[in-house]
């Protein structure tokens, strides 16, 4: 993996934002400027700006149709913005290069897994796509971390939903991405899988990764986050640090924001 920081390479027309040192001297990892996404006449994301440093964990709440998944899609580079740019460690996500994908991991409520491949084969498949050289050591360690070491040779379709979700988690983090994107990861999880997810996410945050999670789940969303945002109609209608507001208080605040009272 190269350290492909190439300021200005394909960021024509976008002002260079000072980078390299942000608050507390922590490095800016993820940067979005004026992100906008239209589907014909529908505007899903309407001008989102975002700067995140190492160790930050942002949870984006919002009602259905607020454009949360589109935002995540663009942050992950899988979706082309109608306008605006995304940079990861200063490198713009371009559609002709394949460097920056190493820095991004995505976990969605869909697993991105092949039901007819075994647990191990799924990871081996993705690991090879990511060009990882040390799969022999990496795979057992990762499987053990999510409690699937015994199931390595099981086909994924034989696993329970919770196990599958744990495997997806291992898959999303297999290449040790700097930025982890989570799209409703708690949907349909049993308590034990949710527990594994929570502890892994805690490790990520403390390991100074940058995490963006979109969710409806207020409890889980508040538990990990260092920052919070509420997205309504494609915009961040409210943004702020997670300063220990209780769940009930935040819920009230959230409804105020969504209904336009704040």
């Amino acid at each position, binding site marked *: 993996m190269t350290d492909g920081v190439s300021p200005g390479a394909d960021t024509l027309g976008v002002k260079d934002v000072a980078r390299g040192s942000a608050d507390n001297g922590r490095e800016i990892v993820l940067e979005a400027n004026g992100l906008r996404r239209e589907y014909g006449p529908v505007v899903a994301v309407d001008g989102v700006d975002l700067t995140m440093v190492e160790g930050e964990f942002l949870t984006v709440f919002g009602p259905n149709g607020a454009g949360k998944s589109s935002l995540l*899609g663009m942050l*992950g*580079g*899988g*979706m*082309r913005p109608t306008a605006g740019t995304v940079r990861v460690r200063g490198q713009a996500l371009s*559609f002709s290069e*394949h*460097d920056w*994908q*190493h820095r*991004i991991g*995505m976990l*969605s409520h*869909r*697993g*991105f*897994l*092949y*039901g*007819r*491949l075994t647990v191990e*084969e799924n990871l*081996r*498949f*993705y690991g*090879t*796509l*990511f*060009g990882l050289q040390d799969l022999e050591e990496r795979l057992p360690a990762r499987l053990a971390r999510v409690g699937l070491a015994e199931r390595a040779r099981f*086909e994924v379709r034989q696993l329970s939903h919770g196990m599958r979700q744990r495997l997806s988690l291992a*898959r999303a983090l297999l290449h040790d991405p700097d930025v982890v994107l989570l799209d409703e990861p708690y949907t349909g999880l049993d308590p034990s899988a949710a527990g594994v997810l929570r502890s892994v996410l805690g490790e990520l945050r403390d390991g100074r990764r940058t995490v963006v999670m979109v969710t409806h789940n207020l409890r889980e969303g508040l538990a990990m986050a260092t920052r919070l945002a509420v997205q309504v109609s494609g915009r961040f209608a409210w943004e702020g640090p997670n300063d220990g507001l209780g769940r009930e208080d935040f819920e009230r605040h959230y409804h105020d924001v969504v209904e336009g009272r704040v």
Partner: protein
Amino acid sequence: MNTYLRQVWVIVWKDLVLEMRSRERIASMGAFAVLAGVLFNFSIDTTSTRPQDVAAGLIWMTLIFGGLLGVGRTFHLEAQDGALQGVLMSPTPKDALFLAKTAANFVLLYVVSLLVLGVFGLFFGLDLGPNLGWVVLVLGVGALGFVALVTLFAAVSTGTNMGETLLPVLVFPLLVPMVIYGVGTTTRLINGRPFDEVEGNVRMLGAFALAAVAAGAVLFRYVVED
């Protein structure tokens, strides 16, 4: 092996392993081919038509319909758990993905082609003699062009809300050269004509296949981006 080749290889491996375990597509294509052979047998009056004059056309049409059935589903299998999105978010170049899908589909269709050839040879009592090898080659070259075009447009039609119904409308006009050169060549070979006589056509079939692979490799990225 460099990363690009390893990426291509692992996708081909994955597709073939999935196919070997589920046998979904190979089974439906194989059954289709054999049953089409049976139906064709009843639809042709062999007292007025010599089987070796029509067999080539039937073989190629069976391949096209059967191929559409199997190859057309190539991205549906991928989409079940969003896995295609996972592949697209990996550092795999889109052309590598296209070439890999094409290669895996080619293996699948080529196996079916040989089955079709065997079944039709049996049903219609064809004696290919020394031309057998050439027919096998021509089927391979034709299948490659077919698979490249269909893989590209399967990605297109999967992305629309019409789904697979759109696929024949898009690819049939484009497949005309393959049908004409493929059938023309195969008919002559079945009738015991020497390969020299059809070499020009096989070259055209090869040029068509190469153009289809190249166009697909370049254009595929614009189809799968979101």
